[in-house]
C-alpha cells in the first residue's frame, strides 16, 4: 500500500474528527444538554489531537510509544464505556461496567509499565474490544426487551453504538496481530483502521443528526400550549 493512500486515510480520519467537533460546536447548546453525546464528541477531539501528536512526536524514543498507545486505549475505552453506562438502565449492569472499567484501567497502567510492545498494545486493545462488545450487546439487548415507543434506529444512541461496534470489530484482528506481522504486511492493512475510524465518525454524525432531529421534535411538542380562554 503506497504512503499516499495511507496519508489520505489519515487525513480523512482527522478531517472527520474535526468536522464532528465543529458540528458539536455549532449545536453546542443542544449537544451540551446530552452529556453522553458531548463525551463522544470529546472522543473525536481527543482522537484528532492524538493523531496530530503522533505525526509530530518521535515515538521510537524511550517509553513514549507505550505511553502513547496505552493512554489512547484507556481514554478511548473510558469514553465509550461512559457513553454506554449513561444509557443503560439496569443498575446491576451499570455497577458491573464501572467495576470492570476500573479493573481495565489498572490492568492497562500495569501492562504499559511492565511490557515493552513492538508496535501497538495488542492485549489491552483486545480486552477493550471484548469489554465494549459486552457492554454494547447488553445495551442493545436491553433496548429490545424494554417497552419502547419508537424503533431502535430512531434513537441517536443506536447509531453511536453501531459506530463503536463496527470500528472495534473491524480493527480487532489488525490490532491483535499487529505485533506478530512484519511492518510491510501491517502497512497493507493499517489503512483499514483509519478507514474504520472514518466509518465510525460517519455513523456518529448520523447519530448527532438523529439527536438534533429528536431535540427539535421534542422542543416543538413542548411549545404547544393548550388554548385556555
Amino acid at each position, binding site marked *: 500500500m503506497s504512503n499516499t493512500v495511507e496519508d489520505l486515510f489519515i487525513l480523512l480520519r482527522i478531517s472527520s474528527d474535526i468536522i464532528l467537533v465543529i458540528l458539536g460546536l455549532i449545536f453546542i447548546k443542544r449537544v451540551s444538554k446530552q452529556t453522553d453525546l458531548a463525551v463522544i464528541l470529546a472522543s473525536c477531539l481527543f482522537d484528532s489531537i492524538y493523531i496530530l501528536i503522533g505525526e509530530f512526536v518521535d515515538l521510537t524514543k524511550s517509553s513514549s510509544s507505550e505511553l502513547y498507545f496505552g493512554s489512547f486505549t484507556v481514554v478511548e475505552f473510558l469514553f465509550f464505556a461512559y457513553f454506554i453506562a449513561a444509557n443503560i438502565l439496569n443498575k446491576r449492569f451499570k455497577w458491573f461496567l464501572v467495576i470492570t472499567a476500573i479493573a481495565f484501567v489498572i490492568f492497562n497502567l500495569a501492562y504499559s509499565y511492565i511490557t515493552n510492545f513492538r508496535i501497538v498494545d495488542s492485549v489491552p486493545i483486545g480486552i477493550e474490544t471484548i469489554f465494549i462488545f459486552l457492554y454494547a450487546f447488553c445495551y442493545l439487548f436491553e433496548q429490545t426487551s424494554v417497552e419502547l415507543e419508537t424503533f431502535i434506529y430512531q434513537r441517536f444512541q443506536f447509531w453511536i453504538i453501531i459506530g463503536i461496534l463496527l470500528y472495534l*470489530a*473491524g480493527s480487532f484482528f489488525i490490532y491483535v496481530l499487529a505485533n506478530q506481522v512484519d511492518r510491510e504486511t501491517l502497512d497493507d492493512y493499517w489503512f483499514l483502521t483509519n478507514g474504520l475510524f472514518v466509518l465510525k465518525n460517519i455513523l456518529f454524525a448520523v447519530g448527532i443528526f438523529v439527536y438534533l432531529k429528536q431535540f427539535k421534535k421534542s422542543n416543538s411538542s413542548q411549545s404547544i400550549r393548550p388554548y385556555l380562554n
Partner: protein
Amino acid sequence: MFLLHALLGISSVMFVGTLGMLVLVIGLVVFIIFHQRKVLRYQMQLQQMEQEQQKVLINASVRFQEEERQRIAADLHDDAGPLLATARLYLSENLVNQDKATQLQAIFQARQILDDTIQLIRNISHSLMPPTLKNFGLESAINDVTQKISGSGSINASSRFHDYKDRLKPEKELLVYRMVQELMNNILKHSSASFIHITQNMHAGCFILRIHHDGRGIIQADFIKLNKSNVGLGLKNISSRLRVAQGKIHFEKDTSETYYKVTMEIPRDELDES
C-alpha cells in the same frame, strides 16, 4: 486463530478475521433491528386490540345505561303515571259537590292508589340502590337475593360468607353486588339450574366470591368470546365493572363435571376496612 494461522498465514488471518468480525457485527445489528421491529409491531397490535376491546366495553356500558334509563322511564310512565292520574281523578274538583260517604270513599281510594304509587317508586329506588346493601353490607344484600330466589320455590339458592369481618369499600360492594345480580339473572334465565350456592372467602388479600350452580353454564373461553362479540351485554357489564374494581373472573366447569363455577377475585385496598 492458530489453526487459521497455520492454514492461511497471518496475513490471510488478518483479512478473514476483520471481514468475519464486520459481518458478525452487521449481522447482529440487522438481527436486533428486525427483532425490535417485530416486538414493537406486536406491542402495537396488542394495544390496538386492547383499545378495540375497551371500545366494545364502553359501548356496552352506554347501551346498558340507556336501557336502564328506558326501563325506569317506562316504569314511571306506565305504572306511576296512570296511578297518579287515577288518584287525581278521585280527588277532582267535583268531589266537594258529592255527599260525604262518596267523598270518604274517593279519599280512601285515592289513598290506596297513592300507597301503591309509593310502593312502586320505592321498588324502582331499591332496584337502583338496594337499601340492604347500603345499610347492612354485601353479605346481607346477597343473602337477601338468595332468599328471594329460594322463596320462589323453583330453585334452591343459598349464600355463605366465611371471612367478611372487614367490609369492602361501599363502591366495591356495589360493584360486586351488581355483578352477582347479573350472574344470578343469567343463571335464572339460561341455565335451568336447580340450585345456586354462593360462597365467600379471603385469600392473599383478595376478596373471593364463588358461585356454584348445576345448570347449563359457560367456561372462560365462552366468556372471552362473548365479550368480544356484539351479544352478551350483561357479561360486558361484568367485564367493565371488574376493570373498575381491578378484579378477575373465571368461569369453569367443576372437576366433577357436574357443576359450573364462577369465581370472582377482587383485590382489597388498604382503606377497604370500614
